[in-house]
């Protein structure tokens, strides 16, 4: 039976050290007998370091990251989401959503033009209307789109 990867416990260890280091810079509390603002982060940092050592020696097998096309899909989706959240204000919600949906479906591997282009535009419009007029939530719309909607 193979053991699990060492990467997760090492990451936990590094994170724990990072938390402990960052909590050194926290101002002490100013009330008498208050354990202070750094109290909780220090417990967390120390706890993570101790647990990482335990987990380093007690490694159970685990699934691990996918390979090939599946990994590309996951990374591609994360990158698209990052682009989407940065474009939502400059481009407005309807346009950025249509773009996101189109590219996302493309990454998944669909090449049918109706699914790639028409459906995203319709869906993003429908969601915009649902929020704006159905639920009273204002989403960003640029002037260009504001005229249309």
């Amino acid at each position, binding site marked *: 039976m193979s053991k699990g990867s060492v990467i997760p416990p090492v990451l936990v260890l590094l994170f724990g050290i990072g938390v402990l280091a960052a909590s050194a810079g926290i101002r002490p509390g100013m009330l008498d007998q208050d354990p202070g603002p750094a109290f909780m982060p220090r417990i967390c940092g120390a706890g993570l370091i101790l647990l990482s050592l335990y987990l380093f020696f*007690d490694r159970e097998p685990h699934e691990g990251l996918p390979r090939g096309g599946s990994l590309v899909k996951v990374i591609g989706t994360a990158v698209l989401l990052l682009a989407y959240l940065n474009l939502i204000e400059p481009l407005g919600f309807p346009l950025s959503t249509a773009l996101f949906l189109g590219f996302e479906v493309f990454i998944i591997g669909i090449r049918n033009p109706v699914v790639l282009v028409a459906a995203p535009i319709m869906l993003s419009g429908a969601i915009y209307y649902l929020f704006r007029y159905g639920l009273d939530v204002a989403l960003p719309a640029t002037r260009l789109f504001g005229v249309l909607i």
Partner: protein
Amino acid sequence: MSGWYEGLSALMDLSVLVMIPLGVVLGIAVGAIPGLSATVGMAMFLPFTFTLDPLTGLVLLLGIYNGACYAGAIPAVLLRTPGTPSSAATTLDGYPMAQKGQAGQALTISLVASVAGGLIGTLLLSLFAPALARYALSFGTPEYFAIAILALTIIASVGGGSMAKGFVSAFIGLTIASIGFDPIAGFPRLSFDNTSLSGGISLIPMLVGIFGVSEALIQLERVSNMHERMTALGSFRMGAGWVKRLGPTMMGSTLVGFFSGMLPGVGGDIGGYLAYNETKRLAKPGDRFGEGEPKGVVAAEAANNASNMGSLIPTLALGVPGNTQSAVLLGALLIAGVQPGPGLFAAAPELVFGSFLAMTLAYACMLAIGLLGIRLWVRVVQIPAVYLWPLVLVFSVVGSYAVRNEPFDVLVMLMAGVLGYLMTKANYPVAPLLIAAIVGPIAEENFRRSMILNEGSLTWLFQPLTATILLLAAASVVFTFVRHRKTQRPARADEAS
């Protein structure tokens, strides 16, 4: 009894009665969409109620409040994305049920549990509110700390495989919750002089990311064509003998939820987890929690709806809101010219008892709308996966953004999603992270305040009520550990041979 009569006659007005289904439907809409919460919905309609008759406005707001609490379970079951924070515990068994092809049954169970929890909660509220409010006052800072610790012990039991991994997950959650201003001194910590970070990590984007987005990433790995759909929906019935099977859980969880809701600031987000933990502790052999156990869904949903009612106790009887939603209700009462507090029940019986009766009708309405609607909502999972999961991502983005129009929150959601994905792949459970992030700050605040109040001495830990709750928490951990050992040993023996 005259209060009930006055309430009934005030309620018998068409404009009031119309508001009951309207409020429930609005509540279901905001509750089912992750990111929109009952608070947002109620705050939006509060100015609208200024123009209404007091009871009419109150009934509308209460409908939204209760409708949203139920509806949070719908995406929690179908998409592993809780619609409201209080439904987070529902994902633990609700989503596995849906994956096993029992989505229909899981939804029906969550609806019935919500209605039962809410109705019993309403009854308790209407009978005992003033007496219970005084009882709630006997819970001071040390008792709050003990309750938070009791809620944290659930971490030991939702870890699945390895307890150590569950604790890692919890510490990550505690660390994330520590970012921003600390709860006692108000100093920024772990924020690296960044304004967005010093404002703290919002719960809702984190919740949406760690459950919904990570699940979407996992599902998208394998989707490659138009025809893939989720599994079958299964029956929409509760299953034979459900009253006997699920009834005790429903009753017990309702009480746990109701009492936790009574404590201002603790409320519904914890109630679901507390009840889930207690239910699990009383599990019978054959109950498979975390793998689609109907009792888990019942516990979470009965508790969070009952805690909704519990939180109205301090609101009505003390004039202190139990959570943000009841703060809006408090505002509505004030604007209606009614002063919540000990005198409220005598001063405005038509309003108080009218609302209680209206809530009873609202739950009946919710049951009807729910039973009709379930067959519609469940269609969501029949959307081809190639659209379903990208759409889940879009709704997650919108929900996270709409909380405060802040792209940073969407970034939090994305990072929480990636973190949840990586943790799942490395076999680390994500539920402890969330529980710790919700409960940790309560534990920290009350621990530190207890120390200040007692001038550094630890004697407060041994006050009767505090010590009892802490012993209960310790027993819970020991019990889980022993049970864990028992189930692990045969498994390891199998592996060795």
